[in-house]
């Protein structure tokens, strides 16, 4: 049986984990996440002949999931293809004249899980460049210095960057660094120096994302190959890894844009950010992944049915509360699942008023019941009479509370009359057989368990989890199965047997 419980747990956790990690279904209700919309605008001039334009576009950018991609380029033929570690969009058209504008738009979701260093393509190790004499001395001195302060390629590169960017540089760095150079040239210089240690490098052109970005442009970052994968570094701060708000556009030698038969290419970048509800994104992502798991979930049912299930799926949680409070703590209740039904009834009346109404109606009902007792009725007609009287009592309480201006008495409308009638009947029998103390204890126990059950079942997180991850109810099942074999003490017994324990211990 433990095997069965284990299987249930594994299934539950497994399905849940898949949904959360692969599809990004949120673990808490109302989560939203940031979605970026980035646009690249390519402009060029047609010179009266057939032209081809090629624009590098993002290819599985680290740290993001691509949700959608679109091109605006009427009149052009369009093809996209992979080229090494990059992707390229190629437009072509005949007889182009005048200014042309082409748009590329990509919608991305920040996805921390996707931030893995890339492993391909595997580069060739560069030969040591032909340095000039003064350069050579500086380069090797610098390399030696850095090597002595680093443990592997990654830390080597980081140390190199740190020194290179030091505001008070060493003499070797002074020789090599040109403070007036543009960022791209500086990174080229870094590559030149690192080649002295035969470390493969490439440039990753990234777009720093900011809300409301217009006329943005790509920045060069440095990627270094450590034998297994490409490590990314901010060439100025020496931080490793692509930052959260940086989008890798293209890497390596491939140019951002290449024109054939046209002139004056210019690429402009803009970006905006918006919040999107995570649940919707997860469904979209599931569709993109051709994953059916969300299609077969409760979310595909009509809304009315969904709402019913939202309540139904919390009932096992209520049952779990009953199991724990009865078998582990030792509460006494009427009936096994009466408290769960009472808890469901509390959904109409809220907790405090529900308890008050419940107590009031049961007390009134008991008084009536004791009168009925004197009539010596048979069981079934007695129950039917009780039911009728209970409903009349409820109507009475509603009217009175309305006249007194208390609106809560009206929410009784769907309070389960049958449960009330049964409770009154059971309670009066226990009263007769075992005395008032037992009856009241069991009654209060039922109410307490119902209250706890209500709090658990209506907790927003619980309602959400039970509905979106119904497989977690398998965990509840596994627990109740295991609890079926629990032969330990109930907390109430620790108190009940204290005198016997004392006596035995003394002996």
């Amino acid at each position: 049986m433990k095997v069965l419980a284990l299987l249930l747990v594994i299934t539950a956790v497994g399905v849940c984990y898949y949904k959360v990690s692969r599809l990004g279904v949120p673990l808490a209700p109302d989560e939203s996440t940031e979605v970026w919309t980035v646009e690249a605008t390519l402009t060029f001039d047609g010179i009266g002949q057939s032209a081809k334009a090629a624009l590098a576009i993002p290819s599985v950018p680290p740290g993001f999931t691509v949700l959608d991609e679109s091109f605006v380029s009427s009149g052009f033929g369009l093809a996209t293809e992979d080229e090494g570690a990059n992707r390229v969009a190629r437009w072509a058209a005949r007889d182009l004249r005048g200014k042309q504008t082409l748009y590329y738009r990509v919608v991305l979701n920040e996805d921390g899980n996707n931030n893995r260093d890339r492993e391909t393509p595997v580069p060739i190790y560069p030969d040591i460049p032909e340095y000039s004499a003064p350069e050579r001395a500086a380069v090797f001195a610098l390399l030696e210095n850095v090597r002595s302060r680093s443990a592997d390629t990654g830390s080597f590169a980081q140390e190199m960057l740190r020194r290179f960017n030091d505001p008070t540089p060493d003499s070797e760095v002074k020789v090599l660094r040109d403070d007036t150079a543009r960022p791209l040239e500086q990174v080229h210089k870094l590559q030149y120096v690192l080649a002295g240690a035969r470390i493969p490098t490439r440039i990753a052109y990234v777009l720093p994302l900011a809300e409301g970005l217009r006329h943005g442009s790509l920045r060069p970052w440095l990627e270094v190959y450590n034998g297994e994968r490409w490590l990314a570094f901010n060439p100025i701060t020496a931080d490793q890894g692509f930052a959260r708000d940086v989008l890798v556009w293209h890497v390596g030698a491939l140019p951002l844009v290449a024109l054939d038969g046209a002139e004056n290419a210019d690429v402009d970048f803009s970006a905006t950010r918006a919040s999107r509800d995570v649940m919707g994104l997860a469904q979209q992502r599931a569709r993109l992944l051709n994953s059916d798991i969300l299609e077969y979930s409760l979310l595909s049912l009509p809304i009315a049915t969904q709402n019913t299930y939202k309540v139904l799926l919390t009932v096992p949680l209520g049952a779990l509360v009953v199991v724990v409070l009865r078998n582990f703590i030792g509460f006494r209740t009427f009936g096994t699942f009466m408290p769960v039904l009472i808890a469901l009834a509390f959904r109409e009346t809220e907790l405090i008023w529900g308890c008050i109404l419940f107590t009031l109606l049961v007390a009134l009902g008991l008084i009536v019941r004791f009168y009925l007792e004197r009539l010596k009725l048979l069981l079934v007609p007695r129950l039917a009479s009780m039911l009728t009287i209970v409903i009349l009592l409820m109507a009475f309480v509603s009217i009175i509370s309305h006249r007194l201006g208390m609106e809560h008495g009206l929410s009784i409308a769907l309070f389960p009359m049958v449960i009330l009638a049964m409770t009154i009947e059971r309670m009066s029998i226990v009263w007769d057989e075992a005395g008032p103390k037992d009856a009241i204890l069991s009654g209060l126990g039922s109410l307490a368990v119902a209250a706890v059950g209500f709090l658990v079942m209506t907790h927003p997180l619980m309602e959400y989890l039970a509905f979106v991850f119904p497989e977690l109810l398998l965990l509840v099942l596994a627990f109740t199965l295991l609890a079926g074999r629990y032969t330990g003490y109930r907390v109430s017994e620790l108190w009940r047997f204290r005198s016997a324990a004392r006596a035995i211990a003394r002996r």
Partner: protein
Amino acid sequence: MRSPATLRRLGILGMNQRNGDYISIYNQRRFYPLVDDKLKTKQLALEAGIAIPELYGVIEIEHQIRNLDDVLADRREFVIKPAQGSGGNGIMVIGGRHGSQFVRSSGASVSRAELEHFISNVLSGMYSLGGLPDKAIIEYRVQPHAVFDAVSYQGVPDIRTIVFRGVPVASMVRLPTRQSDGKANLHQGAIGAGIDLASGHTVDGVWFNNVLAAHPDSGNAVRGIQVPDWDLLLELAARSYDLTQLGYLGVDVVLDRTHGPLVLEYNARPGLNIQLANQMGLLNRLEKVRALTSIPDSAAKRVELGKRLFGDA
């Protein structure tokens, strides 16, 4: 409050363990009807020769109520109870006759018509578990043995013995008090006094979870009373295992002035209060019996085994 580890060490049996490790394993469901229906119990006991209060008659259908006189004959004392009743419900005890009236044990008088009406109610299931149609048993009214007079208030004290695999493991006497309204029900205020299995002597009693030495109504000491016919009583309990086939059984016996120990009823789910009454945990005793590889066939030998293993003397 004690910790669970302490209770475990002291050998206290909890409800979860009683249900999971003992009742569900040693009591098969199909034998339950034999003990829930008092009529079946009586018939089985008669066949097996186990002493019970004499059965005067059974009323099964309304029509038979007419022949009540034949059943009652001239008896002045008798008890009418439902065959499937629970607790002490629906029991009418008649202590005498006064002309055409019957006098209840409480002193109130009932007419013949009221008596018939009561039986009719019993038949229709008013006092039975689940409200099912029932039968009315008319039986001998037990005259309690005088031995407990000093520590009992009205009612009939009864002796409950737990019999595990046919071996008696523990016993207690339930003494009615004014608080319990003459009922031998611990929840309602009766005193539970443990009985040493070897000698049949009572020990201190427990009242609502607290130890007490003297009966609250009479002030007399509860401890040290010798139960008469103790060995016979234990043997009745042991033989009940053969009768009912229930491995974890509660046997309720009353001591009659003239007839000695009589089995009143059986319980397939005996409670845990016996531990409080004896100020001792059941676990050690049950484990000892569980560990036995062979249990003697004869009831007398099993009684001897119980006395030897668990007697204080």
